[in-house]
């Protein structure tokens, strides 16, 4: 079973976002970058499937700046075998252009499962997995929290607006991972060392001109300063009074 996992390099979720000088991108100074957490669930799932079946190959595909190779090596340390970095020095902000570049690179690859995170926790569009699947004419199931593979098909559990669903899909197919799918492992030191020697191919990302532009980036409106109503349960009547009469929230 061959599995390709698409991963994106994003700022750590504990990062305070600072808008950069030109006002349309963030200031990367002092920011720690990680594999987008939902992509990490996808990497972990690929490794678990390979471990369970005892065979197969896991390929990492990442579109991003040169530094994206650092997070690819993290996926290697977790257990992925090899990968391709689609170099984009332009910091593309158009998900469709990114999806098209990923799809172009995937056209030459053989795989049974194509895994994504449900969204990258930077631009939060949550669309790339579905877009790539459509561009490659693959069936796609989103926000999966359980994945079983057998006899050329996958049975998945997913979150939906209705609750939870069990979906069956023929392979090859694409999936996007939701939190709850698994608990990603911490790589051991020895695996981190080994990861440095695994093959990593670099290619320029084939990006079309973006069909949308970021006009500007803003901070969210500041919240008005709040107040400490008091200490302990003695403060409760005053709080309820404020909620009822000032905030009109009850």
């Amino acid at each position, binding site marked *: 079973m061959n599995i390709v996992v698409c991963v994106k390099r994003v700022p750590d979720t504990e990062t305070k*976002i600072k808008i950069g000088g030109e006002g349309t991108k963030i200031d990367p100074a002092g920011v720690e970058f990680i594999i987008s957490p939902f992509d990490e669930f996808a990497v972990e799932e690929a490794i678990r499937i390979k471990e369970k079946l005892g065979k197969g190959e896991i390929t990492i595909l990442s579109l991003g700046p040169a530094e994206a190779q650092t997070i690819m090596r993290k996926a290697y340390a977790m257990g992925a075998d090899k990968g391709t970095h689609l170099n984009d020095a332009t910091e593309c902000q158009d998900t469709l252009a990114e*999806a098209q570049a990923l799809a172009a690179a995937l056209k030459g690859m053989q795989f049974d499962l194509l895994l994504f995170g449900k969204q990258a926790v930077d631009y939060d569009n949550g669309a790339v997995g579905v877009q790539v699947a459509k561009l490659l004419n693959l069936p796609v199931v989103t926000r999966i929290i359980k994945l079983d593979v057998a006899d050329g098909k996958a049975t998945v559990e997913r979150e939906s607006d209705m609750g939870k669903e069990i979906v069956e*899909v023929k392979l090859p197919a694409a999936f996007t991972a939701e939190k709850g799918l698994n608990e990603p492992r911490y790589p051991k030191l020895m695996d981190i060392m080994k990861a440095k020697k695994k093959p990593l191919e670099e290619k320029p990302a084939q990006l079309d001109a973006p069909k949308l532009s970021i006009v500007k*980036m803003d901070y*969210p409106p500041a*919240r008005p300063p709040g*107040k400490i109503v008091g200490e302990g349960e003695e403060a409760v009547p005053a*709080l309820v009074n404020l909620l009822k009469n000032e*905030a009109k929230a009850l």
Partner: protein
Amino acid sequence: MGNNVLIFAEQMGGKFRSVAYEAICQGKKMAQGLGGKAIAVVIGSGVEAVAKDLGQYGADKVIVVDNAKLKDFTVDAYGKAFSEVVSKNDPAVVLLAATFQGKDLGGYASAALGAPLSSDCTEWASQDGGIQVKRPIYAGKAYVTVKFNSQPAVISLRPKVFSPDAPDASKSAEVEKIDLALSDDDFRSVVKEILAKTAGKIDVTEADIIVSGGRGLKGPEGFAVLEELAGLLGAAVGASRTVVDEGWRPHSDQIGQTGKVVSPKLYIACGISGAIQHLAGMRTSKCIVAINKDPEAPIFSTADYGIVGDLFKVVPALTAEIKKAIG
């Protein structure tokens, strides 16, 4: 170049969801700015009868794809049906609600049509003959204003941000039923079973009030005090990432950057310190109350009202006091 707005009207079990009305009302306003029509699209099985009601919310026309095979939503089948309707109508804007379905369909349509996409928009404006949108990024730590350089633009609106106008019973819409050829290829993914939500459980994204708990709850059994308050208020119970990672609460209850982004009328944070990734997920709540024993907890700087104290004493007192206040 078209100037119509095509709107996906999301239904569940043959009933429109409130997000469908939200999208149609905004779609009508966009269409007025573009000098075009608001065309709603309904996809499903047994949905033809309800379609005309969308006229009351502003749809000029409703296109219905009613097919027994489309009983359950799958991205592949609904995506195919939706994008075929879109390409036949050449709209300026394709509008959806940023629900699970809407986000998936938006992605599919964007790829099928080669159209730019922006999800989860919280504002829009007519600009230079087109539509410009504003949307949160990094779970709301920042916002971007986006302009589209190509038509159609695929836009999804964050649920509960835009209120629908009251229905006007005097209005109706022309209904066009169309048949689409769906092949086996469109049904490679099949819904085998739907495990419905626990009866009475309110999803955090749909709740007007959320009572949320963090590490201060000390364990899964600690949530009983929050459940009691939530039950009284008809609220949903949310959780911080730590609590979910510890396995005290289900993943679907997590609020924050790797969980759900919520903006209820009232958010009561109990024993939550206020990590930046949690604040990102709830800072657009209208009113925030924090209860924490650490006066230095960062949650207090985001809260409108705070009580410093032991939540196991404060929360039951709050439940009792609210019971008195609301009778």
